[in-house]
């Protein structure tokens, strides 16, 4: 019996023809989802049945995360899984539209009694039935098994659907990308190349251009600019949202997939079968492709030469050569023959000219980017991040703090503009501070300023700010279920054995796992509120981290920034170290200097031909001198932002036991029994020791 619906028979025939897609997708998905998921569900079920003690919140969160988010249990990491899901969709598209890569097959399909639009939709239908449906079915088995095994209370459907949905979305993106490539490009290799161009070339080119811009716009905060750009990147948004479901929006990826499919539909309808087998099916796109090749070539050429030679003229030369080379290559690929073809030379020439003008525009700062100077009444708040390494953000809202901050920023801007006049291309070495200006409407302007490390321009405002900010953090302690910390005590030359003998551990978090999170939160709040600039400068003893299911958002949160617990944080130290606290404090506040194991030197340097050379040094005579010197060095991470740098002085600490180890290993050839050698240690460049910058007050 023939189906009277004329579309049903072709569809059934196509389903039969492409049945192998179902087999392949099902095998892969079954191996990824139910098979691995079942093992996890069974092991969780067995563990829970053996459990006699009441379960702690943190354990409950662990099992919920395992069953709801980590269902794709696989030896593959998340990046590879992304590639796998996207790759399956991409390959499916290539298989379903492979007739477009052969003139003969293309003609045969075009002769069929069906509009091109319906032919496209039929293939979309086959993708839905043979690729999406088996993925969905495989994903549906896990929750069923969880409920059958009675583990429903450890299962978050929302978390599960987020990650499962993302897997499908990545697959759809791959399919859409493959479909668009197949409909635009007439050979497999050109489609593959085209896919790469469409998937990531814009992001890569923009990233490089942001770097170029930063060589002229000295206040451009590169990392932030790249982050802002990547928010709109389809690939990046899909990857990030797959990696952190719920924390990151996959919308650019979804929008791109829909746009790709819509464009592919149009291209399929308008495509000419006679162009199958050519590099490009849609000939009208040829100028665009040549222009983009010139842009990419110019960008890559400029980057390659600038990285190698680092001079401004090279930037322009690399740009021109790169644009020329890649547009020629594109021309050869389009014509499918090797040789110099200057057809359409005006397009790469125009693209190169635009790029050169863009660089000149950046050089002249025609938008006034570096001169941006808001006033306090225009702003709601200013947020400051003192340095790349620090994750600490300081926020200033009240008029007094705003004025002080803007004054300090104004000084840095002046420094920056002066520096720019001196070095228009590339920045000189400074310590950077990221600033976010936020106006009344919530709009943000990001800038990066620098202050010279060698100048005496200590900024008292910053000290006040640091203190205020630290207190501010007490209001932002995450409401999560787990807290743990690592030992982060400075060794001051103690070796591993000594350290373990003294403190019973060596930078291990075992001792501090499963802290009572409620008590930690309370102690942390009290310590943060009590912090002053002086306590901030105390040595760091511990790194406290908090993570777990966020009670407010219901998502799993890792608070990677953590907290440095200093010798001044009495409440936390009491809670975590208990009776051992005094031993720790005694050690960091001077006890270390009593060690016979240490040899401490104060070194003075002088600058010769842009290099710093050792001028003189002096060995500490006793414990008191060691303590005196060490009181002038940076003892915590933050301090480097609040003190002026002076490269002329250093305190060097050598541990005799470490030196003996080096002699034993054969990496050091010194007679450590010889007092003369010991008193000349700084002269030996290859001798390992701890180096601290000494701050002359």
């Amino acid at each position: 019996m023939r189906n009277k619906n004329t579309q049903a028979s072709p569809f059934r025939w196509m389903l039969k023809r492409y049945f192998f897609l179902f087999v392949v997708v099902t095998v892969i998905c079954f191996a990824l989802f139910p098979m691995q998921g079942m093992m996890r569900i069974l092991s969780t079920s067995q563990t829970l049945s053996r459990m006699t003690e009441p379960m702690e919140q943190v354990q409950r969160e662990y099992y919920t995360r395992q069953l709801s988010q980590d269902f794709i249990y696989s030896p593959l990491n998340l990046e590879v899984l992304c590639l796998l899901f996207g790759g399956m969709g991409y390959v499916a598209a290539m298989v379903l539209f492979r007739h477009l890569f052969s003139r003969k097959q293309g003609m045969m399909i075009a002769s069929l009694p069906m509009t091109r639009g319906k032919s496209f939709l039929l293939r979309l239908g086959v993708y839905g039935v043979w690729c999406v449906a088996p993925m969905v079915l495989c994903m549906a088995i896990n929750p069923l098994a969880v409920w059958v095994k009675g583990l429903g209370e450890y299962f978050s459907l929302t978390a599960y659907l987020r990650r499962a949905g993302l897997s499908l979305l990545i697959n759809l993106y791959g399919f859409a990308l493959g479909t668009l490539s197949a409909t635009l490009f007439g050979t497999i290799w050109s489609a593959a190349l085209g896919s790469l161009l469409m998937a990531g070339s814009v992001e890569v080119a923009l990233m490089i251009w942001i770097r170029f811009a930063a060589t002229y716009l000295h206040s451009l905060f590169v990392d932030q600019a790249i982050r802002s750009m990547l928010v709109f990147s389809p690939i990046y948004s899909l990857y990030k949202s797959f990696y952190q479901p719920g924390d990151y929006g996959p919308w650019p990826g979804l929008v791109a997939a829909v746009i790709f499919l819509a464009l592919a539909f149009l291209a399929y309808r308008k495509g000419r079968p006679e162009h199958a087998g050519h590099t490009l099916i849609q000939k009208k796109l040829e100028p665009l492709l040549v222009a983009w090749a010139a842009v990419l070539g110019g960008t890559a050429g400029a980057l390659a030469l600038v990285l190698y030679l680092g001079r401004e003229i090279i930037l322009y030369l690399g740009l021109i050569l790169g644009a020329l080379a890649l547009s020629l290559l594109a021309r050869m690929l389009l014509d499918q023959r090797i040789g110099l073809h200057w057809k359409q030379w005006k397009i790469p020439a125009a693209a190169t000219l635009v790029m050169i003008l863009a660089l000149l525009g950046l050089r002249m700062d025609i938008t006034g980017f570096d001169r941006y100077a808001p006033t306090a009444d225009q702003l709601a708040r200013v947020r400051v991040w003192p340095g790349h390494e620090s994750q600490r953000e300081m926020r200033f809202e009240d008029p007094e703090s705003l004025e002080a901050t803007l004054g300090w920023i104004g000084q840095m801007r002046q420094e920056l503009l002066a520096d720019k006049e001196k070095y228009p291309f590339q920045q000189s070495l400074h310590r950077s501070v990221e600033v976010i200006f936020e106006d009344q409407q919530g709009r943000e302007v990001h800038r990066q300023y620098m202050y010279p490390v060698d100048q005496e321009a200590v900024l008292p405002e910053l000290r006040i700010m640091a203190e205020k900010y630290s207190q501010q953090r007490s209001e932002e302690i995450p409401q999560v279920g787990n807290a743990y910390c690592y030992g982060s005590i400075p060794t001051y030359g103690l070796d591993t054995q000594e350290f373990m003998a003294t403190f019973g551990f060596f930078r291990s978090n075992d001792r501090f796992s499963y802290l009572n999170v409620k008590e930690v939160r309370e102690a942390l709040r009290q310590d943060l509120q009590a912090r002053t600039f002086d306590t901030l400068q105390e040595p760091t003893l511990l790194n406290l981290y908090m993570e777990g299911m966020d009670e407010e958002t219901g998502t799993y949160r890792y608070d990677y920034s953590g907290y440095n617990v200093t010798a001044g944080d009495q409440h936390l130290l009491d809670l975590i170290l208990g009776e051992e606290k005094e031993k720790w404090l005694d050690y960091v506040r001077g006890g270390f200097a009593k060690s016979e194991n240490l040899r401490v030197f104060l070194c003075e340097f002088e600058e010769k031909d842009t290099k710093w050379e050792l001028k003189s040094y002096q060995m500490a005579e006793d414990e008191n001198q060691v303590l005196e010197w060490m009181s002038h060095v940076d003892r915590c991470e933050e301090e480097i932002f609040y003190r002026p740098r002076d490269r002329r002085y250093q305190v060097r600490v050598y541990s005799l036991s470490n030196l003996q180890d080096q002699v034993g290993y054969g990496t050091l050839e010194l007679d450590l029994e010889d007092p003369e050698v010991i008193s000349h240690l700084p002269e030996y460049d290859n001798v390992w020791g701890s180096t601290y910058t000494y701050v002359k007050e």
Partner: protein
Amino acid sequence: MLKTVEIDKSFGGRQVLEGISLELEGGHIFGLLGTNGAGKSTLLRIISGILQADRGEVYLGEQRVFENPAAKAEICYLSDDPTFLHAASIQEMGAFQRAWYPTHDPERLKELCKRFDLPMEEKISGFSKGTQKRVQVCLALARRPQALLCDETFDGLDPVMREAFRKTISEETWDRGMMTILAGHNQQEMEDICDSVGFLHQGRLTTVGDMESVVSGIFRVQFATAEPIPEEELQALHPLRSQRQGRLCVVTLRGDQETALRKIATFGPEFCEALPLTLEEVFILEMEEQGYAQ
């Protein structure tokens, strides 16, 4: 009726077809002769709805063909290079056709395969090129299309098979009122079975008409006079070709044969005879007139 109206087509700026208008009634076979690269295949592909014309339109009855599934289902294009699904057998190709063409008749396919000695279960890709052409024609006839477009389909077939297929296609055309277009270079074959013919050169149809009028439109006359006739008088006949051997003249003329003979009679010939030309000779003369290979 199959009709093309002012078809234009170009590839990459090169004009391949220009102003092609054709009409073909049911039950007729049309022969499309052309020089190499004249655009025969392109024209057939446009008629079958595979390619889109830059300008102009193709109609099957009242329906436009391009992007019209109903019309495309009734037209069958046989490429000069047969194309089948990858690794398919005749049976699988039959299933493919059955899914796409409501008029496909599996029994007819079986009968044709039996008649032309084709194994239905074996992979077509393993067949010789000639056998693949046989498969292609059998599959086409099993579809029972209203219009059959053959692009050098009989090339590569042995004489027995050529004759058998020619006969089958002719019968199918006359019995069912099918419209058939045969494109190729075998003028003898076309002369034998085509009702009408068209010459295609550099994308233009230079000659179109029923076979008899095209073949008789150009003829050769040989005559002998007592005295040699002056050259001017001979050229006044506007011959396509002329040849003298003493008193014997052979002229190739276009137009009405009776009128030409009356003019020649004024020379007082001792002997005069009109000789018919073959389609091939007519084609060569037409192409020469177009300046082809001169």
